[in-house]
């Protein structure tokens, strides 16, 4: 399969990419790793007239802690994240997710920024970003924007990014003592999109009371979904098996899956129930041991 014709442009800097996008208009699309966009172009689901290649822009590939934040450059590849020592030691939720995302060769190309900016609820990073309460930094014609993750995902392939905006950085609150996260998805085969996935991040105080909790769901709604009702049940409480069972039930009720080739609606609700319970337990264990 060969994509429809387009004109290729390579940007050497963020400002050059933005001005190219301004000049070329709405028919221009940015490409970073290209492993979401190019398959869609080959299937002619997407037929952009212009591709602006942003993958060669210097300085957008990094993972570092600064002040109270973990900062990840948008062009950091999934492979770079997978092998990063800081993420392995302090943020194991990333390893959980990346291990299950596509396969090693695809991860050599795919970037964290692209995975989020694509706006697909089937991707793994959006649910994870909801759980850890990330902030998205984007550059646009009017300067830099700071977008809380809860305002980022607008619809099917639609995000808060406006024409010309480039996602440049992901910021996440730095790992605290007594905090931990976990992610798992059920997939039909290795490398598939999630049949359903659940990301959990828990912060406890010294008495084991849940101070903050984030629960994000993958591929069981049109827009990456936060399990608000479940979070409210746990916040401010000591997390018990009974509460975990209650939240797992809420997750299976509040998710909005549709029957498709990956399974029936009822099957997906059942999966969400099970992995919410497992991920709450796993995140809790990590938080208690951290």
């Amino acid at each position, binding site marked *: 399969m060969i994509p429809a014709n387009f004109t290729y442009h390579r940007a050497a800097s963020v400002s050059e990419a933005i001005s190219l996008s301004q000049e070329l208009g709405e028919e221009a699309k940015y490409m970073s790793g290209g492993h979401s966009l190019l*398959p869609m172009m080959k299937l002619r689901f997407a037929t952009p007239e212009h591709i602006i290649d942003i993958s060669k822009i210097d300085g957008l590939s990094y993972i570092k802690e600064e002040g109270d934040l973990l900062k990840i450059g948008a062009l950091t590849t999934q492979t770079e994240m997978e092998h990063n020592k800081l993420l392995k030691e302090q943020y194991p939720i990333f390893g959980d997710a990346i291990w299950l995302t596509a*396969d*090693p060769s695809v991860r*050599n190309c795919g970037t964290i920024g692209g995975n989020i900016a694509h706006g697909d609820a089937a991707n793994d990073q959006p649910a994870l970003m909801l759980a850890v309460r990330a902030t998205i930094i984007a550059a646009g014609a009017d300067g830099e924007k700071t977008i809380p993750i809860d305002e980022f995902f607008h619809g099917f392939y639609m995000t808060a990014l406006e024409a010309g905006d480039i996602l440049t950085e992901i910021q996440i609150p730095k790992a605290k003592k007594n905090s931990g996260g976990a992610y798992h998805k059920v997939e039909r085969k290795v490398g598939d999109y999630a049949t359903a996935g659940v990301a959990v991040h828990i912060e406890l105080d010294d008495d084991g009371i849940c101070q903050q909790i984030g629960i994000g769901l993958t591929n069981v709604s049109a827009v990456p979904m936060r399990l608000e009702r479940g979070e409210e049940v746990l916040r401010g409480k000591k997390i018990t098996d009974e509460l975990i069972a209650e939240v797992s039930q809420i997750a299976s009720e509040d998710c909005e899956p549709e029957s498709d080739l990956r399974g029936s609606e009822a099957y997906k609700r059942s999966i969400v129930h099970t992995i919410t319970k497992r991920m709450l337990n796993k995140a809790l264990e990590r938080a208690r041991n951290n």
Partner: protein
Amino acid sequence: MTINGESVTAEVDSRLLLVHFIRENLDLTGTHIGCDTSNCGACTILLDGKSVKSCTYLTVRADGADITTIEGIAAEGTNHPLQQAFHDQHGLHCGFCTPGMIMRSIDLLKNNPNPTEEEIRWGISGNLCRCTGYNNIVKSVQQAAQEMQKESESV
């Protein structure tokens, strides 16, 4: 770009996929087209040392890149340790997936010279084989890992 150590210059359509450039423009047909949807890994090559599925990569994006295909991994008249191991361990049956398996395994062994069986299975999870059931492929990668470690120790 550089392919297998040789410099190549060409003007191509922006939509030309890298696998088509390699097979049709350069006549290097060892790189196969399988699923054409970045699932099967038959088209795997090394791009700046990393395994990449060339069916899902635009040729124009590889401008200036250093590319290695299955044709470029062994010196004339010899086998790369992975090629020899696939031969010794019957790591192939029809052979269609083999170039991709080997290119992927080069990247795997570079980052993890002594992988466990499980790490090998996950490491080649983006490469599909429909004949062997993978067992002999895993054995091949294990043999090659040992050989390559011996080689690097003797240097």
